[in-house]
């Protein structure tokens, strides 16, 4: 059973790495966004393999379903001329490959030393509680305040995104509640005292 997990892990991680490399190398930005979707999907599968089911599904829902859709909207809306953007590609490719290889080698060497003491996992029996139940208990118990702060951050992000890209069209008649509230009575109406006009009685 565990060797099947290993095979699955290798499969998912190889597809994830290949599509990650495709993200940074393809010409067409739509293809890059779709490769990123594939990467996220494979990493979500690995997380589900590691018994983090809520996070795996949340990654697909939030990242693929919302963030990548947003990316695709933006990529498709903007009329981008991709040719000048590839200008430094061939020039920087050896530098980038060198830097990435050195970083990867350093990280793997560091992991190699400490991995000798890391033992294989033993899944603790949490009883009948699923991953979601335990996460929920943690989130609403110890992490209540960060949860609320995260909600605030999302609200601020919404307001910021709308406020940044809002365009006021000239010549459209709309209501402005701010100005409506500032109206004063003496600007709008003037009451005059007039004597009553008596109709002439006919003789």
């Amino acid at each position, binding site marked *: 059973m*565990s*060797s099947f*997990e*290993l095979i699955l*892990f290798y499969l998912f*991680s190889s597809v*994830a790495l290949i599509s990650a*490399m495709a*993200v*940074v*190398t393809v010409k067409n930005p739509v293809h890059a*966004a779709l490769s*990123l979707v594939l*990467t996220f999907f494979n990493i979500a599968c*690995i*997380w589900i*393999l*590691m018994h*983090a089911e809520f*996070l795996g599904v*949340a*990654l697909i829902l*939030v*990242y693929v379903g*919302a*963030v990548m859709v*947003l*990316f695709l909207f*933006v990529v498709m809306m903007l009329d*981008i*001329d*991709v040719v000048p*953007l590839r*200008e430094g*590609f061939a020039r920087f*490719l050896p*530098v*980038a*490959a060198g*830097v*990435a*290889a050195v*970083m*990867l080698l350093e990280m*793997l060497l560091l992991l190699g030393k400490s*991995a000798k003491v*890391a033992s294989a996992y*033993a899944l603790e029996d949490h009883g009948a509680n699923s*991953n979601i139940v*335990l*996460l929920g208990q*943690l*989130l609403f118990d110890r992490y209540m305040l960060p949860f609320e702060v995260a909600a605030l*951050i*999302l609200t601020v*992000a919404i307001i*910021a*995104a709308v406020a*940044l*890209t809002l365009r006021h069209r000239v010549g459209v008649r709309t209501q402005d509640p701010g100005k409506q509230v500032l109206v004063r009575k003496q600007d709008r109406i003037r009451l005059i005292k007039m004597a009553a006009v008596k109709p002439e009685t006919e003789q």
Partner: protein
Amino acid sequence: MITLYHALALSAALFAISIAGLIINRKNLIVLLMAIELMLLAVNMNFVAFSHFNNDLNGQVFVFFILTVAAAESAIGLAILVLLFRNRRTINVGEFDSLKG
């Protein structure tokens, strides 16, 4: 048997690929944003791996919050990108030099 080393190596490889992507695509703002998302994904992978192999659920809670903040950040980043395109008609980072910085 999947060990911690496998998962951390995967996370390190993802991070290195995104660094390479940042260096290669220095002009293309959209691919830069996508490379940043890849970096965040590598960090999340790290957290989930440690959470699994230490039987500690706090790592997964932190991934939850990283997901939230990363989604907010990419939304605002894309809004800025749209604004830049609206004003400059380009997303070539090399052409945003009016501040002469």
